[in-house]
């Protein structure tokens, strides 16, 4: 019988070897395929059932927070956004079935406490009794500034972005249209899917954070860049003067370029900058030539994705530059920010910031710190220079030019700040050139203040603004008051008071 028993042993061993092979097949061989199957919810579910820390603004307002659900609910937590749509562009949303965006997406590991550092600290804390490892993300953005920005926009499409020129900290970044994540994050699959589909198809793409994920024709605000490139090259100085002209015919064409409204415009650099004549800047671009202009715009970061700490930033563009030497009229027009030039609103705030900061353009950041479950700092964003497009001397010259815009130029109507705080600005009115609707424009302003010791740099854009017979859209008139409003609030208004420091990890 022993022979049969040995054979039985071999047989049973073979059975278990088959099981081992099958386990390998499922757990290793077909793992990638099974993990990727659409109806496989394991990976999302695993993260979704973990506690998740809050996102707070730099003035201590909770922008996103999780609450445990009642027993029997499908998920262990529900995510809420107490500020509704105010900070949606920055926090993003966090859903079970439709993924997550913005800070919720990029800082998911910190919020759920799965970074190695948090895990290690969590082990240490175990002995002391605390065991939750969820983290807190503190935004650089201020809730109060955000509210003011939203109020000033008043429902018009466009965006307001405020950065600190010296650090790159984003203190406000609000755009219309936007959305309220609360409407779908905790909803049933079908309801959530319906709302998200509607939002995706809605005009103006509310789900997009236009301020850093969209780009628009910048109009005359681009002259800051053209002037900067000219001054850096040495071909242009403050002493240059430009003839009073209504029209100018660039090379390679017979089609003339006109100033805004076909007006007569000329003078020294400071004058044409303040009055925002178009022809002088078309001439500067032509004088510099395609190569210098393209290289120059690269020095300002144009063509690169913005180095912001949020997902999927847009890149500004100088347009197609393949045959620019054959297309000098296009180069001329791009010199004053029309045609194919498109700038990201945040990037324009950074342009103003670079002038304010002695020529150094800082990396913008929306998150200034992360904390562990006990409120200890995990990481604090340290300011970094991204580009140095102009020297300190050029920056100083351009600052004076921009002060001129605010004091006696196109922005003088609307930007004078409370308490006479000096301010520097540049307006822009990008005519979209729609033949059926010539009055359709993007109204821009970029500004920084106080001009002698810049604290804040602003970019405001009202997109697709419609001129009426009574009121023509201009950057100064439409965007100017918004820039003034937010700067006043931050420098002399309620927002100039010291903000309450954030209290991260308060038991959530």
């Amino acid at each position, binding site marked *: *019988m*022993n*022979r*049969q*028993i*040995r054979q*039985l*042993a071999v047989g*049973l*061993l073979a*059975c*278990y070897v*088959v*099981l*081992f092979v*099958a*386990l*390998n097949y*499922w*757990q*290793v061989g*077909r*793992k990638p*395929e*099974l*993990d990727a*199957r659409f*109806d*496989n*919810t*394991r*990976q999302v*579910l*695993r993260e979704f*059932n973990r506690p998740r820390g809050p996102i707070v603004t730099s003035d201590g307002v909770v922008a996103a927070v999780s609450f445990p659900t009642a027993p029997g609910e499908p998920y262990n937590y529900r995510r809420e956004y107490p500020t509704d749509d105010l900070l949606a562009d920055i926090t993003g949303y966090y859903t079970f079935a439709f993924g997550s965006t913005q800070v919720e997406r990029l800082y998911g590991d910190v919020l759920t406490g799965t970074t190695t550092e948090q895990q290690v600290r*969590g082990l240490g804390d*175990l002995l002391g009794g605390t*065991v*939750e*490892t969820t983290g807190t993300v503190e935004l650089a953005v201020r809730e109060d500034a955000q509210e003011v920005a939203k109020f000033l926009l008043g429902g018009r499409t466009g965006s307001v972005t405020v950065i600190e020129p010296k650090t790159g900290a984003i203190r406000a970044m609000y755009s219309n249209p936007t959305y309220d994540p609360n409407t779908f994050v905790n909803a049933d699959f079908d309801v959530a899917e319906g709302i998200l589909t509607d939002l995706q198809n809605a005009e103006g793409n509310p789900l997009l954070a236009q301020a850093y994920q969209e780009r628009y024709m910048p109009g005359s605000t681009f002259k800051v860049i053209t002037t900067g490139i000219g001054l850096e090259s040495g071909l242009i100085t403050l002493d240059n003067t430009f003839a009073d002209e209504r029209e100018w015919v660039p090379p390679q064409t017979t089609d003339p370029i006109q100033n805004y409204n076909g007006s007569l415009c000329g003078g020294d650099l400071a004058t044409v900058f303040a009055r925002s004549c178009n022809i002088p800047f078309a001439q500067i671009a032509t004088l510099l030539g395609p190569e210098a202009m393209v290289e120059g715009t690269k020095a300002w970061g144009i063509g690169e994705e913005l180095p912001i700490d949020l997902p999927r930033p847009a890149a500004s563009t100088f347009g197609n530059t393949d045959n620019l030497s054959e297309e000098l009229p296009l180069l001329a027009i791009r010199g004053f920010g029309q045609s194919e030039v498109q700038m990201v609103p945040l990037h324009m705030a950074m342009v103003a910031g670079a002038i304010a900061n002695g020529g150094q353009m800082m990396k913008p950041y929306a998150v200034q710190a992360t904390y562990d479950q006990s409120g200890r700092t995990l990481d604090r964003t340290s300011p970094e220079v991204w580009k140095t497009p102009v020297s300190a001397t050029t920056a100083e010259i351009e600052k004076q030019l921009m002060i001129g815009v605010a004091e006696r130029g196109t922005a003088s109507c609307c930007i004078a700040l409370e308490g006479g705080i000096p301010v520097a600005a540049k307006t822009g009115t990008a005519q979209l050139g729609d033949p059926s609707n010539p009055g359709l424009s993007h109204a821009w302003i970029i500004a920084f203040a106080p001009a002698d010791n810049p604290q804040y740099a602003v970019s405001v854009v009202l997109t697709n603004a419609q001129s009426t017979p009574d009121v023509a859209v201009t950057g100064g008139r439409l965007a100017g008051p918004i820039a003034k409003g937010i700067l006043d609030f931050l420098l002399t208004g309620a927002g100039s008071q010291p903000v309450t420091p954030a209290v991260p990890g308060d038991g959530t």
Partner: protein
Amino acid sequence: MSDLDTATAVDPAVDSPLARSRRSTELTLVIMAALITGAAYTITALGTNAEIPPGIIFFVAILLGLLLCAHVVVRLVARGADGTLLPLAALLHGIGFVMIARLDDELAGLQATWSLVAIAAFVATLLVVQRATDLARYSWLFFFGGAFLLLLPLAPGLGVNINGARIWVSLGPINFQPGEFAKIALAIFFASYLADRRELIAASTWRIGPLHLPEPRYIAPIIMAWGFAVVVMVFQKDLGSSLLFFTLFVVMMWVATERLSYLLIGTVLFAAAAYFSWTQFGHVQTRVDIWIDPWADPLDKGYQIIQSLYGLADGGLTGTGLGRGNPGQVPEAQNDFIFSSIAEEWGLIGATGVLMAFILIVGAGLRIALRTDRTFEKLLAVGLTTIVGVQGFIIIAGVIKVVPLTGITLPFVSYGGSSLVANYVLLALLIRLSDSSARRLGELPDDPTPNERWKAWRLSRQLRRAERQAVA
């Protein structure tokens, strides 16, 4: 024969070093199993809700207490037995308990109670069955007992349908599956019956055409027992157990008669029965359809197996981490699907550990069968080992889609009192068989059992009394 030579040299007065080393191996391994379980319990709790379980010291103490109690009883009444069986069972039991506790608090409490009962049953079995050969004397009792247990769920008022299978008996607050015990009873009956008549059955004097078959009267009771089991299983819709009984019967016949033809005939019979039930029963067809393509009905019939496979894939090589997976996605995760829960959270590595534990139990069981010189004990060891090994294979293969899924518990691991208690009884029997053969091989002195001592004492008293009377 060298074993016997050395055995004769052992001074009965001196304790056997072999037995002592086996017991210290067992003690070390049992403590390790308890520590692994305690550590897994802690890590799982940390993974689930980031908390060290408040009663962890208490938990480990109780666990260790229970296992040490079992160990001490083995030391007292079966000290020559194999030292690995109890620790292997304890490890599987521990891993299963940790997973059940992680899936459902309430079930964990019940399972803890059942664990207590199971260890008590283990101790009781070792104490009651002091000589393995005693079992052979009651083989017919086991036959009728097993038949009775199998029929019990069909009794009106007692049997309960749970998940489509009528294998449960409800007695007041207690539900149990008598089938779990019936398989042990029938294994004992088969072993005893075949041990007595294996030559007669193997002789195959009855000829039908080219076939040589045993005399009908010798084989009839076995066919009856087997047919009885199969028919009852079909009525109770318990495919897994049915398959297990088939295999148990065929394997024991084959080993007893040493004739491969029994294995072949058994396989053919099984294939025929499987085909027949596939054509006749809707639930069998469903099982096969799901096995072939679970994604044909991913939200209903195929849901359980698909979720099991997703769990396996999510676990991958190293697992999601204890308490960090979502094994609760699989319906009945604590029961039939406990293996896929383990594979999800412990990964391929942990799951392979479980497979190896089963292989080692099978190895230890069959080694007992090889070592013993008595036919009955050989066959019983083969039968009991086959039950554990095949049952483990059927359910693991089912949840990882190697064979169609048949509902059956994973020995020692799954939730369920009857299963746990029955498997600990089975384990005690294997340990008893192991100890008996060690004693006969002379590895330790064959002291009389307490029962024999008691009888001897009574006898001597009677003798003395008789002497005194004679003197008087």
